[in-house]
């Protein structure tokens, strides 16, 4: 019914139809408005996320296919301006975040349109090529077919090396699937191929998606609105828990090329033309590559630089979550640390009473809530433990 009301609303009123911020106000016992404590809310959301991230083995070399449903359901406008526009925008953010957190992994994009699945981009490690290809092909029509998409992805993922983790992320807008055969067989086939399928639905919960995710060990979630969709898709960026039998652990040969000197001229193996200056020479066959990480075109050796590997280290050596400090006025230790150890911000609230703080269980230093979030989400080092 919102669509009809929108015609009569002014432009400024339309921005409030989705966000009803006045509904989140609360009254206390005497009827006075309680101020919205954004910081505490943010921190409690962050702590909920932290609790679910336990110390489990994770798959770092991932081969992920993103399946985008381009059926006519994706052109629905319940997400503004349309479902497919929202999907495309957030897939771009997701791809960049994915390559930031998993520099050794590769992504491919598959689309479903008119009941047929097409491979939009081959599996590869360059974020720009995927994003550019996606933005050109966003027309929606026809039915969606989950089985055709899974068959296509299964065929591609069977060709990747055994040490990689195989994953599929399906962004499903439709409420039905038109399949040529029995989709249960395809689901069992994916399960045997050890492919972890996850689905994010934009319409409503479907049994077949839930069954697919349960069988293959993935996660199924349905987005409520645009910001929720963004949150759900970005949850797939950090590496998921790895099931040990899925990827055989063996030593993987990798090359660490030297950067060519400025002014040297050689023929680049990816562009097939002569290039001057900055490039990387494969240590095994001496062919030139333009950017890292990549696979050498001549000898097939995976070429990386050590910072790419180092970006994944924090998944292997996570830091312990900090404990909340229960402010008890009789606790003598509270008076010793008046400032956050990381940023030197005062831990006392304006009344000189101890404000909210957290403590590292190992080095016993106190930190403010913002440093807690920064340390666990971005920095991955405890400044207190590193200063001992």
């Amino acid at each position, binding site marked *: 019914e919102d669509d009809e009301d929108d015609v009569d609303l002014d432009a400024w009123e339309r921005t409030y139809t989705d966000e009803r911020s006045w509904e989140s106000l609360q009254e206390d016992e005497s009827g006075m408005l309680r101020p919205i404590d954004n910081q505490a809310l943010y921190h409690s959301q962050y702590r909920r996320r932290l609790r679910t991230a336990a110390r489990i083995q994770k798959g770092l070399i991932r081969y992920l296919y993103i399946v985008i449903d381009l059926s006519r359901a994706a052109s629905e406008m319940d997400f503004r301006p349309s479902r497919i526009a929202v999907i495309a925008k957030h897939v771009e953010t997701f791809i960049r975040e994915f390559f*930031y957190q998993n520099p050794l992994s590769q992504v491919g994009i598959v689309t479903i349109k008119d009941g047929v699945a097409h491979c939009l981009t081959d599996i590869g490690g360059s974020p720009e090529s995927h994003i550019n290809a996606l933005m050109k092909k966003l027309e929606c029509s026809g039915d969606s077919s989950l089985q055709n998409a899974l068959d296509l992805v299964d065929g591609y993922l069977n060709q990747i090396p055994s040490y990689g983790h195989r994953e599929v992320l399906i962004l499903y807008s439709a409420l039905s699937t038109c399949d040529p055969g029995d989709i249960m067989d395809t689901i069992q086939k994916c399960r045997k191929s050890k492919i972890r399928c996850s689905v994010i639905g934009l319409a409503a919960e479907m049994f077949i998606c839930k069954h697919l995710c349960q069988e293959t060990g993935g996660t199924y979630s349905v987005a409520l609105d645009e910001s929720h969709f963004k949150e759900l898709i970005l949850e797939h960026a950090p590496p998921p828990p790895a099931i040990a039998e899925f990827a055989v652990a063996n030593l993987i040969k990798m090359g*660490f090329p030297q*950067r060519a000197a400025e002014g040297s001229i050689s023929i680049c193996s990816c562009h097939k033309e002569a290039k001057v200056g900055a490039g990387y020479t494969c240590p095994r066959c001496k062919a030139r590559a333009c950017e890292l990480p990549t696979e050498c075109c001549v000898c097939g050796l995976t070429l990386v*630089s*050590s*910072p790419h*590997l*180092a*970006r994944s*280290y*924090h998944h*292997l*050596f996570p830091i312990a979550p900090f404990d909340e400090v229960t402010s008890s006025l009789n606790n003598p230790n509270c008076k010793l640390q008046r400032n*956050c*150890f*990381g*940023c*030197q*911000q005062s831990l006392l609230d304006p009344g000189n009473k101890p404000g909210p703080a957290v403590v590292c269980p190992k080095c016993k230093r106190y930190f403010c809530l*913002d*440093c807690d979030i*920064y*340390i666990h989400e*971005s*920095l*991955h*080092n*405890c*400044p*207190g433990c*590193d*200063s*001992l």
Partner: protein
Amino acid sequence: MASAPSKLYADDVSLVVVLLDTNPFFWSSSSLSFSQFLSHVLAFLNAILTLNQLNQVVVIATGYNSCDYVFDSSSDLNRSFENGRMPVMCSSLLQKLEEFLITDEQLSKEEPEGKIKPSLFSGSLSMALCYIQRVFRSGALHPHPRILCLQGSLDGPEQYVAIMNAIFSAQRSSVPIDSCYIGSQNSAFLQQASYITGGVHHKPQNLDGLFQYLMTIFATDLHSRSFIHLPKPVGVDFRASCMFFKLA
């Protein structure tokens, strides 16, 4: 990697977080004495504060047992300047530095003779990044932060993972890490830090002229770096250290 872009708030106001190496294992064998080094550095810090009255300087001492803040130019105690005499900054910095050095030494545990301890660079780098995040949270108008590392101690291979984490976090927040290596060999970690984050790395040839190197290379604010010729990396040593045995 391209040099760090400048953000569009206050364009040439800088916040410089200086990480000062105070490791006695290094200073006891250095050709430059610690007091001479401090006189170069203090003159340089004063110069930064006079370049623009909104500039801020924070100094974190990197010891071998601990790290701590020794100076913050934006705190209330340090703002008043006394007419004609040495600014309050020098005396409070020196006092806190001395207190830090005494505490740092007291924290020493029994160590076998002859083992050279590295300075706790990853700790002070992490503290600097936390402080910079606090500056980012303070609102839209804030100085452009950068980190300057004055290190002479050798790299501690056991700190590799922590330093790389800090470097990537700095790269994500667009905070350049400049480094001036005053030791005798080379620091792969400092070179990588400056290369990845878009900062400047330099190893001065003649330590008697350290002040001149600091002023000409490291005093430039981020906005002006696009039109000033600064030393470029000749070759970056990307060597990692073994994660299992914690050796180089």
